[in-house]
């Protein structure tokens, strides 16, 4: 029988506050991260994302509140919690004296991981660094250094991985590789917390999303719930004929506008619909058909996380 961790949350943050003078970089944050999830911490620059992560990873030890990883306090048992956590910092850093391979070998070693050439090679291949394995790290390009930093954080196979703005300044190729890799890691049991201000990233990857502004965690939701609760459906119809003047007024219950001679845009909130009544789209289409009008095309979409985020944060 394999042992299994029984706790509710892998990471438990209770009333975390980090103050710099008058500025509260993190303000009374309480947050739980569940085993096996991908959590996105979303916020503008200077919102306190990196500070929050630094408190967990051990870079900041003077803070108010409590942080536990797998039930161990990060300040009372750092030798245990740091073994569980991996961190890919935001800023590019390189070790001027060592080759790519050596820096991985030593980084794993610091965590007590014996050198395993096979594993190092596999990681290097997975992040397209294999050809650069014997190069000094200082000669790597920015994108390559970012890859190396990710490999370094993975050397000890952490169960809780923090990616601090992982795709800041990287090309589309690495971004897609990384997203793919994050999903695969999650599938084999790595819990991932990523900070980002690219909303697309959170929308594509995260199971849950926390929105942080000026150190305060404004809300934490399931991605789908957030999109549904704050999301707006938008449907646009292009008719073959001019829109009759009284068409939109006859459907006054809905937010509906004529946006061109033959174009109609309709906006509605999904969560406010009565499940037993016809939907606004039903009504509009029925009205158009009844009047004998023809629809050339119809398109629709849901508001992105970006719009929701702007609404919540600004």
């Amino acid at each position: 029988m394999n042992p299994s961790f029984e706790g509710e949350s892998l990471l438990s943050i209770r009333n975390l506050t980090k103050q710099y003078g008058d500025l509260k970089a993190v303000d009374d944050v309480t947050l739980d991260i569940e085993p096996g999830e991908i959590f996105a911490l979303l916020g503008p620059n200077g919102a306190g994302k990196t500070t929050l992560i630094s408190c967990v990873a051990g870079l900041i030890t003077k803070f108010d509140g409590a942080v536990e990883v797998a039930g161990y306090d990060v300040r009372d048992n750092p030798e245990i919690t740091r073994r569980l956590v991996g961190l890919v910092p935001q800023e590019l850093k390189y070790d001027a004296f060592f080759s790519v391979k050596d820096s991985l070998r030593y980084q794993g070693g610091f965590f007590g991981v014996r050198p395993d050439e096979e594993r190092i090679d596999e990681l290097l291949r997975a992040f397209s660094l294999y050809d650069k394995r014997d190069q000094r790290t200082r000669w790597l390009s920015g994108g390559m250094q970012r890859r190396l930093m990710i490999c370094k954080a993975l050397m000890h196979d952490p169960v809780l991985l923090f990616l601090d703005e992982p795709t800041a300044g990287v090309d589309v190729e690495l971004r897609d590789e990384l997203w793919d890799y994050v999903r695969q890691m999650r599938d084999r049991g790595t819990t991932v917390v990523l900070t980002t201000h690219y909303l697309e990233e959170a929308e594509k990857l995260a199971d849950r999303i926390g929105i942080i502004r000026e150190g305060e965690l404004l809300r934490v939701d399931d991605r789908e719930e957030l999109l549904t609760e704050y999301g707006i459906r938008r449907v646009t119809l292009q008719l073959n004929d001019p829109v009759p003047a009284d068409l939109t007024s006859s459907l006054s219950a809905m937010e509906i506008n004529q946006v061109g001679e033959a174009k109609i845009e309709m906006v509605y909130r999904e969560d406010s619909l009565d499940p037993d009544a016809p939907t606004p789209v039903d009504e509009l289409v029925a009205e158009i058909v009844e009047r004998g009008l023809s629809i050339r095309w119809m398109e629709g979409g849901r508001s992105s996380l970006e719009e929701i985020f702007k609404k919540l944060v600004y």
Partner: protein
Amino acid sequence: MSVTDVVAIDGRDTEVESPDDEAEFDETSARERAATAARRRIARTVEIAEGGGWYGTWMLFRKELERFWNVAGQTIISPVVTTLLYFLVFGYSLKDRMREIQGVPYVEFLVPGLVMLALINNSFINSAFSFFITKIHGNIVDVLVTPLNPIQLTVGYTAASIIRGLIVGGCIWAVAAAMGAGTIHNPAIVLAFMLLTSFAFASLGLAIAIVAEDFDHINLLPNFLITPLTFLGGVFYSIEMLPGVWPTVSKFNPVLYMVNGIRYGMTGVSDVSIQMCFTVVVSLCLLFLVTSLWLLATGKNIRE
């Protein structure tokens, strides 16, 4: 170019799905499956983490060794050559005028002083420079996120610095010996003073690197304290040769005891008692060790 497979340290990690469980897993969501895998991995990694161990310290030591070894031209050869210039200039230009000090030929009297001079500088600058440069480059983060505790960090950094001090000091002695000036009176005492002195200054270097905010701070101590104290600590002369109150003043200089300790080990003569030499060097070891441990434990200047 694509990511094809997730790399696991240990193959068991991926054994979440087994053929027998297939039907069951079909009903659970991917997220629940990930949670199950995560819970197993957490339990196993906690076990590993609780095991602790000193392997990380060993790897830090190895990395630090490799760091100075990769640039041995600057870290080993250059200090050896510089020190040998002192040996040639002072030893051979003054040997006809000085002949003997306390019954020991001057070149032989000079060798332990020069060994100590190089040992002090190199053990100090090795840990100071290495730690400071990682701090400035920001890759100190690589070390700070590891489970290494203050004691382990100190051991890793100072042990490598001690090795550098011993190598440089040993090379100087070996070259001097090849030129006929390498005496050994008591090898145990020589080794003890080389080890203790390099440990003291390696710890001091670490402490200074933690506190320092720019390169000037790193150079301040060697330039204005360590080098003057070393030169005035009897490297080139016996304090008995000094006039007036200066022999007494010199006894407040801690480096005097290190130079005389190793000089006793090599030549059998010393300006001060060997017991006193041991007392001073051990006290300095403790003082600098405690200081660097305290700085690392409080996280001053490196953790917020």
